[in-house]
């Protein structure tokens, strides 16, 4: 029977570790290694990358043996919308100001949840904007305009 690797928990984890480890070693190739007595900037990361690679292989092999699956489902939609809401905040803050950034982030983030009730979310966006304006702009005196770029 061919094992299903797509949802094999430890196989994926091991693969992730091994790839990152290999990348770390490859990228550190350009940094001088030095000697054990005088370590160059490449020494420590190369060693770490190699260790991570080996751990990765071990976890990967164990995954093939135990074939344990990832629990639950992958929340791709929730993950994508949450990440997008954060990206939008960074993008909008210095272009449109704090209030538009908060409103958009709240809307997009809320869409990641199971239920989306527009009225509630709009009210939440207003509350968060007012609260943030009070705490961050007036309280902590962060220098971001409420509306408008800078």
């Amino acid at each position, binding site marked *: 029977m061919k094992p299903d690797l797509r949802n094999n928990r430890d196989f994926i984890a091991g693969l992730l570790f091994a790839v990152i480890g290999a990348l770390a070693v490859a990228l550190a190739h350009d940094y001088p290694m030095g000697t054990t007595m005088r370590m160059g900037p490449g020494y420590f990361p190369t060693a770490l990358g190699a260790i991570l690679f080996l751990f990765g292989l071990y976890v990967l092999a164990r995954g093939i043996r135990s074939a344990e699956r990832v629990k639950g489902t992958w929340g791709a939609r929730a993950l994508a919308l*949450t990440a997008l809401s954060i990206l939008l905040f960074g993008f909008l803050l210095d272009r449109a100001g704090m209030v538009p950034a*908060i409103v958009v982030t709240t809307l997009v983030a809320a869409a990641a949840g199971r239920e989306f009730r527009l009225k*509630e979310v709009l009210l939440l966006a207003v509350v968060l904007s007012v609260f943030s304006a009070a705490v961050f702009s007036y309280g902590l005196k962060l220098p971001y305009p409420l509306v408008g770029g800078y």
Partner: protein
Amino acid sequence: MELFTNLAYGFGVAFSLQNLAYCFAGVALGTLIGVLPGVGPLVTIAMLFPITFHLPAVPAIIMLAGIFYGAQYGGSTTSILVNLPGETASAVTCIDGYQMARQGRAGPALATAALASFFAGCVGTLLIALAGPTIGEWALKFGAAEYSSLMLMALVASAVMTQGDAVKGLAMVVLGLIIGVIGIDVNSGMARYSFGVPELIDGIGFTVVAVGLFAVAEIVANLESREPREVYTGKVTGLMPTARDLRDAAWPAARGTVVGAGFGVLPGTGPALSSFATYMLEKKLARDPSRFGRGAIEGVAAPEAANNAAAQTAFIPMLTLGIPASATMALMLGALTLQGIAAGPQVMVDKPDLFWGLIASMWIGNFLLVVLNLPLVGLWVKLLTVPYRWLFPSIIVFCCIGNYSVNNNPFDVYLCAAIGVLGYLLVKLECEPAPLLLGYVLGPLLEENLRRALLLSRGDPTVFLTRPISLAFMIATVLIFIIMVVPTVRAPRRPA
């Protein structure tokens, strides 16, 4: 006695109007947010600590400590009232606390938890004051080799002792160390893993990693599970425990304190393991063990005392050695570092106001918790009904603002989203994020000390084994590793 002069000095610092206000604000905010369903202490601290970044060092750390035990306390409230632990440390409290609530004894359960925590907090604080200077003095003798071995021990212990898979834990530590490498190498001035991105030359910011790993990833993981709904909505009446309750709870609380204080200093174990251990102990000691699980007051008093004692003593290695024993302490250490303070034995000498002020404020904070929380139980019960669909967008917004405000740079916010995605992946693959954070925090220090140790020994790696203190740490590391890892590797696999 020196201890009293120091403590008096500490109280002098903590009782300044400003510090008292921040302590109060921290405890109140921590409880307020920690009591919200699905928001544990780690998320609370990760979210709030960019805010403290804008304060001076002493109030910032006092406020963070307040947030920490406030959130921890909030976690026990949710355990008792909703059967929903904020984090693993209060998971045990659910068992009997929630049963007590269902029997209409939510009030005494909450009061017992508060009083047991307060007692344990007092003892824990006193222990820090007593042990801190001694350990600090001893640690002043540490050279680079000792520090390297000590860090290795802390990292291995944190990896293999957290719940879940030891090997994956070790891999997470190494991953954290690699993330810590990103940025300028202090010795050569060379930028590593920066991909030509100017923002990466300074390394990935601490807030970015902590918020991405603990707040963002946690939220996405929470969104999958249905909202847990069996909220205790009855009125909490009759707050005070009876004389019998107090008598039954006193010894378990004392024993819990001892167990918790012991576990708290150990890396990787902390509050969670201590509360489990002490619950088991009480069950063994009880005349009628069958009462446990059906609302035994000992089952609330002992673990609550244990996790609070552990939460206090966990500060000992962080403050005196600069080695965090848990993810929460790694957050504290990160906050100190952001404030430009290198935690370690020098702190007591260089910054006595910080050290002793923090200790005194811990006691004040624990006191505030009791005074503040018992009368406000009604409010906490109301908060428990706030739906998660309002909470998580708010958490995300505050995390974004916090992250942006540290460097006033949108790049940090983008990076936080990326770390959040990675964190979610790791959570789904059942890799514990705490060891990664520890590795990330200790990485630069470990590299620096390793390099210095090997330079001084002229490249001879036996230096870690020939110096006695270092050798002791190395032996401990190997022992921890053998005890924790070998059984899991050799044990026959459970049928899937």
